[in-house]
């Protein structure tokens, strides 16, 4: 699957004789090694293990779990209840022993003794947070597989979007204003489906401001999906396994003279199943809305 997209775009690149002239400062920095380096910087040496007790709050019970500080994540804690419980978790509410409660990603290491509560797609409370996290994750996944698929160096921006828009989008820099043709979109969609099916976890590091400023990263979190690393401003879902139907609709130029290409798509979680007819309506609506909006 990987080869056709690369070759497709490489062919077009050669035929149109464009060169990636745009400056792409962050791409070189945000590598998988850089992610490991930052993780080491924030959480310290993983060989020195310190234990903490984390209480997992379920609906009508609570279970204390002994975990490794700065190594174990809420996902590991939820696995002590059951695998299904862990797989269903989209976000987690962390209530630390000191300080106020906050929401975090499921794969973010636990830093101190705390109580944690699972938030899933079927939760009644905080559903807007789950929706935001899902939409953000879809943009990141799109960026992840575009970066792997394309044969040119590209950088990404993540425009703020909401479910109410009907679509999510990613701005791609480095394509020199070349939008994807329908054939290319088909190939990309096929590649994307294979990528999502691999159930890649979203590894998350919460960035302290000092480190973010030192490294020139604009975001509160650093996310790694497979080998691709991106900064983002909020929590994300646990794994690509939670993504159900997914499609990249089309691409268009940002603004009139811009060289940025905006790629739009739509997706629904795997937990929220629907018929092909409903999905076709959703995709058609998203395509129309994406085309209308500038």
């Amino acid at each position, binding site marked *: 699957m990987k080869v056709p997209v690369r070759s497709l775009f490489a062919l077009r690149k050669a035929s149109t004789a464009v060169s990636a002239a745009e400056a792409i400062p962050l791409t070189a920095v945000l590598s998988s090694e850089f992610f490991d380096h930052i993780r080491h910087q924030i959480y310290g040496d993983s060989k020195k293990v310190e234990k903490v007790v984390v209480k997992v709050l379920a609906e009508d019970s609570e279970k204390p779990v002994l975990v490794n500080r700065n190594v174990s994540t809420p996902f590991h804690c939820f696995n002590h209840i059951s695998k299904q419980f862990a797989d269903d978790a989209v976000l987690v509410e962390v209530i630390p022993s000191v300080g106020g409660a906050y929401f975090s990603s499921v794969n973010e290491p636990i830093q101190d003794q705390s109580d944690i509560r699972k938030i899933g*797609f*079927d939760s009644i409370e905080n559903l807007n947070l789950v929706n935001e996290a899902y939409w953000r994750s879809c943009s990141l996944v799109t960026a992840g597989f575009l970066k792997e698929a394309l044969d040119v160096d590209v950088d990404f921006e993540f425009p703020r979007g909401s479910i109410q828009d009907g679509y999510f989008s990613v701005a791609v820099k480095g394509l020199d204003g070349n939008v994807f043709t329908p054939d290319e979109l088909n190939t990309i969609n096929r590649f994307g489906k294979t990528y999502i099916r691999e159930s890649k976890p979203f590894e998350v590091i919460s960035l302290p401001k000092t480190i973010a400023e030192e490294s020139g990263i604009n975001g509160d979190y650093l996310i790694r999906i497979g080998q691709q690393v991106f900064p983002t401003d909020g929590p994300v879902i646990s794994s690509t396994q939670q993504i159900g139907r997914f499609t990249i609709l089309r691409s268009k130029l940002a603004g009139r003279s811009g060289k940025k290409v905006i790629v739009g798509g739509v997706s629904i979680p795997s937990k929220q199943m*629907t018929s092909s007819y409903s999905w076709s*309506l*959703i995709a058609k*609506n998203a395509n129309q809305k994406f085309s209308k909006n500038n």
Partner: protein
Amino acid sequence: MSARRAVASLPRIGVTIGHLPQKLKTGGIEPSRRARLEVLRRIVTRTVREERVELKWNRAVEARPYIERLIQLGVERGPLDEYTAEMMEWWLPEKDLITKMHDVLVPRFQNRESPFTSLFRLPPQRLQQFIQNKREIWKRYDIGVLEIYGNPFPAVQAARLEQSDSILDILLTDALRNHHEDLQEKLNVSKSK
């Protein structure tokens, strides 16, 4: 009163009766024409005692009408009826269950119409059948949950939650609204022509 006359006086039971008799394996029971009834009697007894049982699907399907009819006899004809007493005695060999049937289950369904039971199908499970020469033999089974209404257990099917803020509902509502608007527009254009 004969069985035919007694049953004819009762209303139809509110569950589907399979047109094909389900095959019931009667291993462990002395082979006879009544072995099949013996299997059903055990299921009925267990269901009345436990009020919710997990069975092989075909057994659950077959046993359900018998439980329905037994409860219906209690509701329609009461404990003093000769035929009802005979049936209760045969289907519920444990005497405390006859008391339970008349004092607990029948009053529960006095003002209620059939069906008195519900049957749910669970996903097939792979279960160990037997071990032969240290070799485990596994088989896929269709599982059914047979329960009497008003049992004290939590519901098998969770109540449908209000999920109007879910991603699917938000996207679908918007898509349907726009789809209807498009259709209305097309209709107006065709009318004006």
